[in-house]
Each structure stands twice: as C-alpha cells, then as structure tokens.
C-alpha cells in the first residue's frame, strides 16, 4: 500500500524528471552560443552551440574562467562590472578565441541573475558572430581608404598641373607684354 507521502514524492520525482529533460533540451537546442557565468567569472553551463562555436567540449570549458575565450586585458572584469551595475550589457564588441586559437569578431550581451536574497548570483552571456559583417566593414574601409588615396593623388596631380598652367599663363602674359613693347619700339623706329 502506497502512502499519501510516497505518492506525493513519486509525483514530485516525475515532475523533476520532466523539468530536468526540459532544461537539458533547452540548453541543447538554443541555436546561439550562450553560457552561464558565476561572479568569479567561472563558466558553469554552456549551450550545445557554444561547444561547436568554441571548439571546447563541455568538460573542457565548464569550470574555466571566461578569460579563456575572452583573453583581452580587463575585458571580462569590465563586462562583470557593467552587468552588476546595469543588469545587462547590450551588444558589446569583443574578440572571441576558439580552442584552436582562431580569433572571431563577436558582440556579446549579458543579463544578470539574482538569488532569492536579491544577491547577484551570476549572468547569462550570449555571443553573436559578427565576423562576416566586420570583414565586410574592414573591406569597405580599405576600399574607401584606397579611393581616398587615389583621389588625393589626382588632386595633387591637378594642383601640379594648375601650378604649371598658371606659371605658363604668367609667362605668356610676360611674353605678350614683351612682344608688345618690342612692337611698339619697332613701330617708333620705322616711323622715324
């Protein structure tokens, strides 16, 4: 005979099992790299996409400091401070380093978590790969730089040409004046 207490325990266990499956499936499904980080900046949980994006297995990266993937000096402390202060960080630019040391331009967003005592208990951090748009932007910047240099070169050529033309004009004027004077002089001489 099952007592009421045992029955409740059985139901609770079933609910817990469902919840476990739900949480695991959700972290596995999330199609973006996300991790949960504690106030020590230690990574405590990651999505399946984070594994693929970083190249680290769950067992390799959980328990490691966030600086493993964001090694820029002071960056993660800044993120932690901003998240604590404002609750969120929105689209901050960063460079993510994968397990095989590949640098990827990303933007990160965070959202803080608080416990039942309203103490800061860590934060979620999501990563968006912006390397394509960053590469495009770089290419565009390089093109603009190239065109600007070309333009400057042409302006400089024009300036030289203008200088030359002006010099030529002045010379022509001087020569015309000289001819005029000579003509005047020769006219006077013939009339004499």
């Amino acid at each position, binding site marked *: 005979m099952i007592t009421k207490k045992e029955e409740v325990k059985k139901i609770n*266990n079933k609910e*817990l*099992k469902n919840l*476990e*499956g739900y*949480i*695991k499936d959700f972290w596995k499904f999330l199609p973006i790299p996300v991790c*949960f980080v*504690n*106030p*020590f900046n*230690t990574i*405590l*949980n990651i999505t399946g996409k984070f594994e693929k994006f970083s190249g680290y*297995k*769950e*067992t390799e990266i*959980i*328990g490691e*400091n966030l600086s493993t993937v964001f090694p820029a000096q002071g960056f993660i402390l800044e993120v932690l401070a901003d998240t604590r202060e404002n609750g969120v960080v929105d689209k901050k630019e960063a460079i993510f380093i994968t397990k095989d040391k590949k640098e990827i331009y990303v933007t990160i967003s965070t959202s803080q*978590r608080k*416990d039942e005592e309203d*103490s*800061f*208990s*860590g934060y979620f951090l999501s990563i968006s790969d912006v390397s394509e748009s960053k590469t495009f932007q770089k290419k565009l910047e390089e093109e603009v730089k190239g065109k600007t240099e070309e333009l400057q070169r042409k302006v400089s050529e024009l300036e030289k040409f203008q200088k030359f033309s002006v010099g030529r004009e002045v010379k022509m004027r001087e020569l015309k004046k000289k001819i005029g004077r000579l003509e005047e002089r020769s006219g006077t001489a013939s009339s004499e």
Partner: protein
Amino acid sequence: MINKEELNKLIEAKGEVKGVVFQTDVKYVLEKEGEAGLKKIEDKVKELGLPINYKSGAMDSYPIGLRIASLLLIKEVFSWPDSEIRNIGYTAPKTSFIVKLLMKFFISIEKFVKKIPTFWDQHYTRGKLEVVSFNNEKKELLLRLTEAEIHPTFFIYLEGYFEKMLQFLEKTSKAEMKESVHEGKPCHECLIKWE
C-alpha cells in the same frame, strides 16, 4: 577482479544515491571511449545483473552501493588506473545536473562552504558531510565525512570531486583525502587548499 559476493554486499548496503552519478559516469566514458566503450559497460552491468540504468534521470534513486559498483566496473573494463577514477570525480561537477541546480551557491566561498552539507545530501541519503574548519585567510577548508563506509575507489573519486567543486570559486585549489578518527570512530577527511 570484481566478484559477485562483493557486488551483493554493495547492493545490500543501506542508503540511496541519485541517478545523477551514473549520468556523470556516462559522460566521462563517452568522452574517453565513445559509444563502443559505453556499450562495454552496459553489457557488463547486464551480465552481472546490476540494476544500474545509465540513462537514468538525475533525481532517480538507487541503492547507494551502486555508486561504487559503477566505478569498480568502469575501472575494471578499461583497466584504468586510480588517477582516471580521480579524474571521473574531478569531471563530474562540470556535467552534473544537481550541481547545475545548486550553482546559485557558487557566488562566494563563504556561501558555498555553508551549503557543502547540502551537496552531499542531494546525492546520498547515507553519510554526513560537515565543515570542520574554514579559514579564508589561510585559504584552507577541512571537510569530514562520517556515518558512511567509504570504499577506497570512491575515496579517490571524492578527492577529485571536492577539488573541482572548489575550483568553481578558487581556481588553484588542491584536495587531499585522508582517513581519520572522530569521536573514536573512523571517518574520512578532505583538506582543500588554494592559493
């Protein structure tokens, strides 16, 4: 080699363990030996008629001795040295669902230390884990495990487990388990130091 008599003794031991320990064992075996390795373990469990379910839910309950049986089987099937068993313990908190549920306590070392007995109770219904001393200035923590017989293989596992737990907060921690006596009774203590 693990024998039936030893296994029966383990299964008959009083107390329960949560299925999460089998989940973390599976993760480790899969990573090291792949699906073929897991099949070897499952076949061995079947051969010995043990009620271990490696697809168990984290909160399902099993006889406490199966925690040790699982480690002994893994050790035997792959001929792994003790260091590998320590590493299973070291890796377990990283993938443990229960640890993930309790991660809210990883916010300060003081808060974490207060909750250490909870971590044990969430996994095992037998044994009592208590904090003997905690000195944040000296960077030392001494834990004592009483009211439980600890198999030498589990002893090694726990050393790795405690070490990793502290590393979630203090990266450089090192744990060392030793047998001791408390109030005239044998017990186990774990000294964890960090820099």
